[in-house]
Structure formats: C-alpha cells, structure tokens
C-alpha cells in the first residue's frame, strides 16, 4: 500500500457524513414540503433561520470553546439590514402620500423625523443591502472579538460581556423609536425589488432559498471543521496555552471563529426577515440569544447536523407546547436547559452516536467509519 496522501487521510466528508447530509437535504427539500401545508412550511422555514445561528455556535462554542451569549445581536443586525431595505421599498413616495413627509418609513413620520437618517441611505440599493447584511454583523463581531481576544478575555467573561452587548443593543433599538421602529420593530414589509414576498408562492420559494443557504453554510462549516484551521480551533479549546506556545496567534483564530458564527447568524436573520415579514428587538436581546445557545446544546455542541435538528426539535416543542399548555412550556424549556447539562451533555448527536449509529453499522455489516473516531471527545463547555 502506498502511504496515504493528506487528502485521503483527511477527506472533506466521510461517507457517513455524506449520508447524513443526504438525509438532511431529503428532509428539508422533499419530505417537509410534501408533508406540511404552506403555513407550517413557513413556520419550519422560520425555525431553519435559527439553525444558522445554532450552526455558527457549533463552530464557535463547540469547536472553539467561545460561548457567545450575544448571537441574537448578529441575527438581529442581519435581519434589520434586510428589513431596512424592504421598509424603504415599501415606503415609496406614492405609498406614503398621506404622511407629512412622504417617502420615509411610517414610524419615522409618527416620531417627527422629517428626513431619512444617514445610516438608512445605503439601504436604498439591493446590492449594498446584501453586502451589508453579512458585512455589518461580521465587522461588529470583528471589533468586539478583536477588543476581547487580543486582551485574552475569554470564557465566562466573554459570555457576560456579549450578553451585556445584547442588552445594550436592545435598549438602544427600543429607545430610538424614530430611527429603528422601537419595540414594534420594522413591520409591514411588502416587496423585495418589486417581488411581492407576502404571497404563498413567494414564501415557498423563500423556504427553498433558505434551505439552500443553510446547506451551503453547513458545507462551509464542514470545510472549516475539516481543515487544518479546524484542528487548531479544537486544540485551542482544549489547551490554549500550548497552541500559543507553539507559535500560533490564538486571538486571530478566535476572532475568525467568532466572525464566522456572526456571519452565519446574520444570513439567518436576513432570511428570517424575508420569510416572517418583520424584524423586532425581541429577536435581539438576552433571552432569544441564550435560547439560541440551547438549540446548539440540545443538538450536541460538536455536531453541525445536530445543531439543525436541535433547533427544529426545540422550536417544534415550543410551538406545540405553547399552543396547548402555555404554562408548561417555560417549565419544559427550563428543564431542558438543566437536563442537557446534567444528563446528556453531548445532546442529540451524542445519543445518536452512542445508541443509534452502532445499530445501523451492525445492520450494514460492512464496518462504516465511525463518526466518533474522527470527532474529538466531547469536552465540557470550557
């Protein structure tokens, strides 16, 4: 046998993982659209936008060990960028003729703002908006990350400060009603470049676009995970000093992971705005941010696919329970937080790996490469 080249030694995806990806694609693109009506499908689409955040957290928290409690900030920034474009398009001069200042969003008019603020002007153009959707949150993450990681702030301190940033941004958005729409957020969005996003066919199409983007993000995350970069992230999580002493700039890698998670979250936020038709500060603050962490935790913080299934499962449970037993839901969610920490820290992916995957491999007779063999052992959150 020839010695294995690095490429085959460390393939992009193992056959098992390709199978998982195929299952995920089948679920998102075939099974769910066939099984659900338009309303439910739109709901699933909304859940899947959260999965972008969970995916980012799997990289940032699971692989790199940085727990961010402010992912809602990036989700919200992405969503707001998109919402600002849609709102400007919805408030054309002829649509807003009855206002005292036509051509500006209605909430500005209600709050005695008479001219479009400067930071709204770039959002008149679709290309600029699409760039801003990713760039603004990523840049913000870069600034925060650079300020913190260069000074070796990490772990619990980082978590608390990101949480404070989420709180600040929420208060700011709610307080500056004339510029941001306040507590109601930016509502009454109608068209994307002339295309009505409120129709059923548009919602279905957006669902598929969303699914496609999610799979693209999974592949990007997989690429990071499998590359040498991913190895360094894991090494840093487990023994930061050693990586530093080996000559790596630890801070830069951390900033990268944090920015990547922010970019994913931003794409999710923009898709959320498009599918749900509004954006409000209730998706930015502390509570949604920490709920997004539980999606990744339930899925198994080290599993990219788990993050998606975890998001779907928790949101499905949330909708079901809060529809029928609103009182029980918070008890259930609280218990979920405690259970995932105490009883099964590897989440769904851990259960799958331990109980289901061995059965499947035994049935298939031919020993498939074990996922567990290539994954680092589930380490505690730090």
């Amino acid at each position, binding site marked *: 046998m020839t010695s294995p080249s690095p490429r085959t030694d460390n393939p992009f995806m193992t056959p098992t993982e390709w199978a998982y990806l195929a299952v995920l694609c089948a679920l998102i693109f075939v099974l769910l659209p066939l099984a659900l009506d338009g309303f439910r499908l739109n709901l699933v689409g909304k859940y899947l936008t959260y999965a972008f955040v969970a995916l980012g957290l799997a990289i940032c928290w699971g692989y790199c060990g940085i727990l961010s409690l402010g992912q809602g900030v990036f989700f919200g920034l992405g969503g707001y960028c998109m919402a600002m474009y849609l709102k400007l398009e919805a408030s054309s001069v002829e649509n807003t003729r009855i206002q005292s200042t036509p051509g500006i969003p209605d909430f500005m008019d209600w709050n005695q703002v008479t001219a479009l603020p400067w930071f709204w002007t770039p959002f008149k153009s679709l290309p600029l908006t699409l760039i801003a959707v990713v760039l603004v949150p990523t840049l913000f993450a870069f600034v925060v990350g650079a300020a913190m990681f260069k000074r070796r*702030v990490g772990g619990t301190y980082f978590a608390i400060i990101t949480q404070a940033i989420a709180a600040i941004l929420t208060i700011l958005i709610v*307080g500056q009603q004339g510029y941001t729409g306040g507590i109601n957020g930016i509502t009454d969005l109608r068209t994307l470049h002339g295309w009505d996003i409120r129709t059923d066919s548009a919602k279905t199409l957006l669902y598929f676009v969303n699914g496609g983007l999610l799979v693209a993000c999974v592949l990007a995350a997989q690429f990071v995970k499998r590359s040498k970069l991913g190895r360094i992230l894991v090494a840093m999580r487990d023994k930061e000093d050693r990586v530093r002493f080996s000559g790596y700039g630890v801070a830069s890698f951390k900033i990268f992971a944090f920015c990547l998670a922010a970019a994913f979250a931003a794409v999710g936020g923009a898709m959320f705005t498009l599918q749900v038709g509004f954006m409000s500060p209730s998706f930015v603050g502390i509570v949604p941010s920490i709920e997004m962490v539980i999606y990744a935790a339930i899925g198994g913080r080290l599993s990219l696919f788990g993050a998606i299934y975890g998001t779907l499962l928790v949101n499905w449970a949330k909708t079901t329970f809060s529809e029928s037993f609103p*009182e029980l839901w918070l*008890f259930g969610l609280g218990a979920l937080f405690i259970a995932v920490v105490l009883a099964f820290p590897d989440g769904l992916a851990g259960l799958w790996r331990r109980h289901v995957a061995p059965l499947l491999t035994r049935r298939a007779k031919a020993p498939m490469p074990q996922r567990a063999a290539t994954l680092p052992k589930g380490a505690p959150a730090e």
Partner: protein
Amino acid sequence: MFGEYSLGDLGAIVAMQGFAGLILFSVYVLMALGLAIIFGQMGVINMAHGEFMILGAYMTYLCSGFFQAHLPSVFPAYFFVAMALAFVASGALGILVEWALIRHLYRRPLDTLLATWGLSLILQQAYRSIFGAREVGVELPSWMMGSVQATDTIEIPINGLFVMAVTVLITLAVAGLLFASAYGKQVRAVMQNRVMAGAVGIDTGRVDRLTFGLGCGIAGVAGSAFTMIGSTGPTSGQLYIVDTFLIVVFGGAASLLGTIASAFSISQTQSTLEFFLSGSTAKVITLLAVVAILMLRPQGLFTLKVRR
C-alpha cells in the same frame, strides 16, 4: 443639556439624584455582593440570581399583606421581619439548588450558566403560577415615607437612608464573616485550592453549600430593598441580572471592595444621567461605558494578583 442649569443647581441635582440613587445602589450592592461571593469565590455563574432576589421581594410582599391583615399593631416593624424571612427563604432555596444542581458542575463554569438559566425560567414560571402575572407592590410603613430636608434644595428620602444602613450592616457582616471567622478562612481556602482544602480536612461540600446559600440569602435581602423602588413581577429579576454581572466583573470578580466601588459608580452614573436624559439612554450610556472600560481593562477595577 446642561446649559439651562446654573452651577449651584447642577450641584443640587447631582446630590439629589445621588441620594435618589441610594436605593438603586443598595439593591445593586446586595445583589452584586451575593453574586461576587458565588461567582468570584466559587466560580459559578448564577443566572438565577435575579430570581432569588425576586423570591425575597415576594416574601416581603407576603409579609406586608400578612401584617396588615393580622397584626396591624406591629405593622411599622414588619420590614425587619420581612428582611429576615427573605434571607432565610432565598438562602434555603439556594442551599437546595446547590445540593441538587450546582455541586455537579463545579468544573464546568459555562455549564452552570446554562443550567442556572434553566432554573431561572422554571422559577419565573413558578412565580407566575403562584403569584400571578400581575406585578405587585408593597405598602411601606409610614415612618419610612417622606424625606429629610438637608438644605433648601436637597432632600433625602428616609427609606433610602434605611436601606443604605441595612446595606452597610450586611456588607460589614459579610466582610467580617469572610475575613475574620473560621468559616471565612475555610471559604477562602476552598476557593484557592479545592483539592488541597479537602486534603487538610475541610468539608468542601459543606462550605460550598453554605457559601452558595449565603450568596442567595443576600440576594433575598436585596429583593426586600427592591420592593421600594419597583413593583415585583415574575420577570423583574431578569432585568437586573446583566447589570449585576457587569458590576461584579467591572469591580474585579474576587474583590468585595471592587464590587462595592463599581456598584456605586454604576448606580450613581445611571441615576444622575437619568435626570438629564431619558431612562433608556442613561442606561445605554452607562452600560456602554462599562463595556468600553472592560475592554480596555478586562481584569476589572480591583484585582487580586493571581497567576492563572
């Protein structure tokens, strides 16, 4: 924004708002003191701290109702009973939580964060089921109402002075307990080196449980003080948790003196700014300043020199 006030007016405003901020300061100090003990000494992130505080507030509410209905003659003194009860209730719950949950997680600080967040959701829903979703207020005895006229322009609210005095007493008691008693010596030993402390015969489990209970109990007293500045609802505690964590981190996690200094500066900044700006802008500016300072000086204001 300062233009229309003379210098003397400004001084009076700052002084008045400063005294008005006293209760906020006391709530912050008591909350942060409990958190600093739990986070700084034990390394546990207790996201349910706000809910322990609210338990104290509900205890005060129950007490005020009970005394009004059954013992109106001693109503003026009920606040003392309420504070003691708040301490006991929150402390007991804290000990229970430590035993059931926290002790399994000492090596995983970020996991304590998630687990205690879950706990806080459960407690919130429990409060909502027991006390209702409506916010409740507490009737203060008459001797706590009103204010002292210090100068022509400066008034000091009496309840502020009272809470302030209680805060000082509790702070001194905690400092005494931690730095001048055998128990405090054990706490500090466990905090510095858990394994070694266990090896020399300290029951680390018991010390942890008592320390956690103490921190939660102080949060309960903070809840009693809180009833004077706001009405109590199931989610009122959540509003304070981020501020409190920032105070603890800003002060330097392991330093009690730093905690007090940072609670003072944050509450006074916020209270003074609130006079000139809207409440939300004041809060944003205060929090932004704290985060900015923390980015420049991540170790906080006061730090112990430790090698990590």
